[in-house]
């Protein structure tokens, strides 16, 4: 009985894309490393070019690999078992992303509840404050650092709130796109997905605007842990939204080209999961970075 139910597993033949991707990552790493050294130390070099070459190659790899993947999937090579493998793989990948953000949130909590209060003399650090930072007062957000740099707080009302609403709505529209796909309402898929992408782009635009505003009012990447955590958390989130938007765009075109069936649409599902994940991160961000 059991053996009849077992499906033939599709093991892909040799593929050039992984090794292309490996070379691309190599170029990106070498390029980015040298580019950072050269740009912050005012040196000449090939860092930027190497980085761009790497990114270009990575793009080639992604397109090629996905094309393979799509062709295979379209010609029905994939079994349900493989579909499960992909879904689980994506889920674990998102888990790894959760842990990446967790580390930055951890840094934020540590700064708020440990390092800043300790610099102000809390816990076993009375002498830290008395001897090293006698004028420092621990408050959050940390607008005057122990070293004396000052900055301004970013309020939660206005732009951030608007962005929160935008992202929340985008999750809803994406959800509708998904249910429409499952009931094979192609037009509605396109509309809902298009809306989601639009909302993503607006979010990014507003976020860019907010950064400019922040720099204007003196909140910068290097203005102490408040600015550090603010920009790194929102920055990495922004990068993820960008990536998510690109993924959604690809999905959009695939829908236009008639890919996916109501039952088999792993790529769509993965993209949707990713988008919802990015959304949840934002809600956490909004709460812990802006409001609290």
């Amino acid at each position, binding site marked *: 009985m059991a053996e009849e139910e077992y499906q033939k597993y599709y093991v892909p033949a040799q593929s050039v894309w992984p090794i292309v991707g490996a070379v691309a990552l190599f170029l990106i*790493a070498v390029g*980015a490393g040298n580019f950072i050294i050269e740009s912050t130390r005012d040196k000449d070099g090939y860092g930027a070019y190497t980085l761009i070459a790497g990114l270009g190659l990575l793009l080639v790899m992604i397109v090629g690999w996905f094309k393979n993947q799509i062709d295979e999937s379209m010609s029905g090579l994939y079994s349900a078992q493989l579909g499960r493998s992909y879904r689980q793989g994506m889920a674990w990948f998102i888990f790894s992303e959760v842990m*990446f953000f967790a580390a930055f949130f951890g840094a934020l909590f540590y700064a708020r509840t440990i390092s800043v209060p300790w610099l102000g003399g809390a816990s076993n650090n009375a002498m830290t404050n008395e001897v090293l930072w006698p004028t420092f007062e621990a408050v959050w957000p940390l607008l005057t650092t*122990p070293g004396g740099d000052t900055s301004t707080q970013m309020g939660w009302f206005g732009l951030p709130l608007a962005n929160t609403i935008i992202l929340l709505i985008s999750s809803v529209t994406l959800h509708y796109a998904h249910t429409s796909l499952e009931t094979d309402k192609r037009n509605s898929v396109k509309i809902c997905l298009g809306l989601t992408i639009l909302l993503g782009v607006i979010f990014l635009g507003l976020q860019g605007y907010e950064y400019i505003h922040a720099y204007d009012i003196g909140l910068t990447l290097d203005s102490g842990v408040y600015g550090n955590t603010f920009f790194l958390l929102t920055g990495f989130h922004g990068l993820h939204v960008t990536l998510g938007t690109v993924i959604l765009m690809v999905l959009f075109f695939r829908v236009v080209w008639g890919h996916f069936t109501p039952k088999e649409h792993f790529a769509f599902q993965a993209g949707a999961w990713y988008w919802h994940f990015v959304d949840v991160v934002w809600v956490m961000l909004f709460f812990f970075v802006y409001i609290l």
Partner: protein
Amino acid sequence: MVSTTDTTHSGDHDADTQDHVASDHIDDHHHHEAPYGISRWLLTTNHKDIGTLYLWFAFIMFLVGGAMAMVIRAELFQPGLQIVEPNFFNQMTTVHGLIMVFGAVMPAFTGLANWMIPLMIGAPDMALPRMNNWSFWILPFAFLILLSSLFMEGGGPAFGWTFYAPLSTTYSSDSTALFVFSVHIMGISSIMGAINVIVTIFNMRAPGMTYMKMPLFVWTWLITAFLLIAVMPVLAAAVTMVLTDKFFGTSFFDAAGGGDPVLFQHIFWFFGHPEVYIMILPAFGIISQIVPTFSRKKLFGYASMVYATGAIALLSFIVWGHHMFTTGMPVEYEIFFMFATMLVSVPTGVKVFNWVATMWRGSISFEIPMMFAIAFIVLFTIGGLSGLMLAIVPADFQYHDTYFVVAHFHYVLVTGAIFSIMAAVYYWLPKWTGKMFDITLAKWHFWCSLVSVNVLFFPMHFVGLAGMPRRIPDYALQFADFNKWISVGGFAFGLSQLIFLALIIKACRHQGESVSSQVWDGAEGLEWEIPSPAPYHTFETPPIVR
């Protein structure tokens, strides 16, 4: 079981078309033998090829990292600065640690996982074969970057494998940017490798291979993979913060901006402690395969082995502070981390006792894998017990950052992780090549290694207790005698590994006597039911496990 075999509920495609289409294509791709030449290795999606690549890479890295250890031991042969400058010495220590951890032990385990997990659970391959290739091939590049940074102006990383800020930020050389990105790539590789392992185990077991029937090597790797996915991203975040602190003016680890250098250590060790268990859990799995085989007796306490592994993994998330007892944590935290750390000994003890109970009233024979396994049990336990001593905070104030710690972790890593890898290689090599390896050479390898490794690492306990700090290129005269012995042991241990190299090369040339599919009498498990050498494709039709 249902999850691996059931199609009726998923119902994507009509079962008939599915079978038809799939077999067409599989014929295309599959029923030929291994491809030839360099492209076989560069483009491969075959779990056995990728496993082989990982294992060779790990071995080469072991030799490179070992060569650096030889530089360290040569410099420490006598007091005084003899052959290298302090700054270079620090680079050697740092890169030795990084290479051994990320380049030797972890890839070796991943290689074994690639080779053996599909064979042990009756799967045709890993779940995501192309990603499997990718996760391997980015590794050599990562280490190429790391090693080439040694030749940059200002030298490579010289801040210890733990790269504590601000030594790794404000006070490091600019090559740190490359160090950071190479660690990112290592992390990406490990995460992808781990995802592959988890998904393979969840999804590709042969019918009847229920979770509680899986061999322990599979179980321990499942849990290891979970640890990897949970903590490698945290390491990535840590290096990212180092990068921004050094180059972009952030102050995560700088008090003047409201940060704290100790925050770095919290983040690092939140990764770092699970990391050390990542390097020992698969070893536990290997030993749990080998001991029953050569005792000709079922593993004692299978279920408790599984639970103990899980318990160690869970505890590993709440003990990181034991690396930071001297950082000035408030006393409540110190006590918490002390108790939590000590608790790890309980499940680990369960494992040791189970192995002994497996041997008890068995019918024991001493083939090479068993000799390494026995050496593992004894020497790992010594390392574990010194770990327990380190957990006692007041005593750790004296041990911390001395050679006592160096002794502890080389016992668990070299005579633990590395010995288990060697045991595994001897155990499965005949399965891989179809020939028995050169037993005489193997015996030489074992006995030379066993003696020299103890001459190398045992006296480190003494010099450590007597007060020799770690990471120093020169030391006070009272440590001179023991250091001489340590270095002699080190050179001897290094040379002994060349015997291993010779043996492996011989085995790869398929010299020696052919072996049966079972190889060892007493061996049980799916991997022993396929022919030796294992064909290029196995279990295309899944076996039935009862």
